[in-house]
């Protein structure tokens, strides 16, 4: 197999050849491991710069692809941590130098430069690779860890509403179905109609499923006990950016006071606030190519939808449930504050 390169990875992203965010995460991790193992670097700082270049390139060309950027940020934190523990303490310091209050924020201002890791340590490469391998194991287990929580979150005779296709939510519900008996309503998710595939998979494991139109979400909501969806990105303010249709779903849930749970592994938590993650699709998604439509009619096809933090009840992640107001704190545990470039 050819060694992964940055250019190939970005091209694959651009042509949308990945089937899910999980595969994007795994391949970006493979690329980062390749850089750590094979690129020529001597000091920690050089490695940090190399890794951050991946982030910079992806954000310049495809700003809405947050998963690879989050993986880079995580890798940067791993490198800084390994460096600090190698050197034994305070060397990887913020370049601003003064008595810094530890940054627990959504959008750091201190230290636009990377932390200084100037000492050349011989075993840094191995230690970083080891830590990245551990992270890879965690990544591969995250689906399972989330699915396992299904049993405790869903009770007998409940009506769950979900939306479009999400492999994680499918695993979550399948696991719960082993012990509980409940009913699932699936919104079909036009124009891709992936909801049909979801309904089929759910009924195959013996769950009673109903398929509804996206516009029927509001009238159905009064009968629903819980809404469980997946997402593409979790924003730093606790909101989410996900496939079109989720915002209406979330507003309906808020109106009827139905809790909305979002199943998301930790690599989807990103440090952006939202505006940059916008992408438009081609008009042919909703209007077939040869349809006669006057050219004065503009066809706008958006890909993402924003759900504000007030409409989300909780995030179900690998380790535990996280409230939207706690997301900023979780980000400071996952990523290094100094390593984010504005």
């Amino acid at each position, binding site marked *: 197999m050819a060694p992964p390169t940055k250019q190939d990875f970005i091209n694959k992203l651009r042509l949308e050849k990945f089937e899910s965010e999980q595969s994007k995460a795994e391949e970006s991790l493979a690329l980062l491991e390749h850089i750590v193992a094979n690129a020529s670097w001597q000091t920690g700082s050089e490695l940090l710069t190399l890794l951050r270049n991946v982030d910079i390139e992806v954000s310049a060309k495809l700003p809405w692809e947050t998963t690879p950027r989050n993986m880079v940020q995580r890798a940067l934190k791993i490198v800084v941590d390994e460096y600090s523990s190698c050197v034994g303490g305070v060397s990887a310091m913020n370049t601003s130098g003064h*008595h810094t209050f530890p940054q*627990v*924020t959504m*959008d750091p*201002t201190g230290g636009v430069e990377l932390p200084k890791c100037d000492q050349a340590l011989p075993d840094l490469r191995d230690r970083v690779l080891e830590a990245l391998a551990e992270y890879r194991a965690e990544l591969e287990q995250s689906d399972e860890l989330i699915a396992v929580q299904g049993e405790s979150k869903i009770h007998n005779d409940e009506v769950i509403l979900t939306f479009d296709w999400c492999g994680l939510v499918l695993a979550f519900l399948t696991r719960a179905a082993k012990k509980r008996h409940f009913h699932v309503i699936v919104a079909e998710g036009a124009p891709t109609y992936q909801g049909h595939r979801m309904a089929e998979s759910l009924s195959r494991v013996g769950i009673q499923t109903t398929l509804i139109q996206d516009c029927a979400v509001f009238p159905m909501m009064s009968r629903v006990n819980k809404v469980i969806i997946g997402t593409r990105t979790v924003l730093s303010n*606790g909101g989410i950016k996900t496939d079109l249709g989720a915002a209406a779903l979330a507003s309906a849930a808020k109106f009827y006071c139905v809790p909305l749970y979002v199943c998301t592994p930790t690599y989807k938590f990103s440090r952006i606030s939202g505006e940059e993650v916008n992408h438009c699709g081609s008009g042919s998604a909703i209007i077939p190519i040869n349809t006669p439509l006057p050219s004065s009619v503009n066809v706008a096809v958006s890909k993402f939808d924003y759900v504000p933090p007030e409409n989300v009840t909780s995030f179900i992640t690998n380790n535990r449930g996280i409230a939207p107001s706690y997301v900023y704190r979780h980000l400071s545990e996952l990523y290094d504050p100094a390593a984010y470039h504005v």
Partner: protein
Amino acid sequence: MKAFDISTFFLQQMSADDNMSPAIAATRALMESLRLDDSTTLQEFIAKMKEARESLSKTDVSVVSVSSGCELFLRFITLSHLELEQAADFASCREILLRRGEEYVNTMQESRKRILRSSTNLIKTGMVILTHSRSRNVLAVMKEAAKNGKQFTVYVTESRPDCSGQRMAEDLRSCGIPCTVILDSAVGYMVERVNAVMLGAEGVCENGGIISKIGTCTVATFAHMKNKPVYILVESFKFIRIIPLNNSSLPKSYLHCASILNSGKDLGCEHPLVDYTHPDNITLLYTDLGVLPTSAVTEHLIKLYT
């Protein structure tokens, strides 16, 4: 003698630089009195510093931010530090305290720049912004955005009783930002036209609520009701350790200036200077520590005060 010096020094600093926050002027005054101080023991020194702080809060300038800035300054310099414990005598202690004081004042003075950095993406072209009264931070961020070529419109409330909104409008117009002064009572009428509300604050409470010029509560509550985002631009030295339950539980020293409290007038007839805005009405706080949700304030306060 010293108490007299510190108040006049403080007021001199305030009149010399209009853009300086009162809290920074107050800490500078404290630094000056630290330099001139002739105490021989740490106890005496701390007692004198406390006296100095008391006399500063008796001036008629914004008590909320001044007392918070001074409190943090004193904590920062006297915080049990390894060096202080190892110092041989009080003279070397004083050296250390002076140095830490200088560091702290320098950091404080950088805080506005850091707020500018964290709010670079806040104002977008075509935005219509509503602001209340005259906040130095809001003014700085708007000037920066105009300098970077963003085109936006501003509505400023007149902000009685001192009509500082008029001054804000003049300052904005001098930078080429189109702005209109509106009556305080016209906020309800205008909110539907604006995209966002940007406000300053005199103090940030532990629960994330803010204490700010009278009228802020109205603007923020109404904007929130109409689902407009409310952004507060404030430095971290204004974080204070109180949690007011409502507007009636604000301390009198915040509501009225010192000269009125001392003159024995009936406070029921005096108009309050500040009000309290509940954190539910605030979307985000743009501070020098970064962009914080209201739930993050308590954590930062703990870090600042320990």
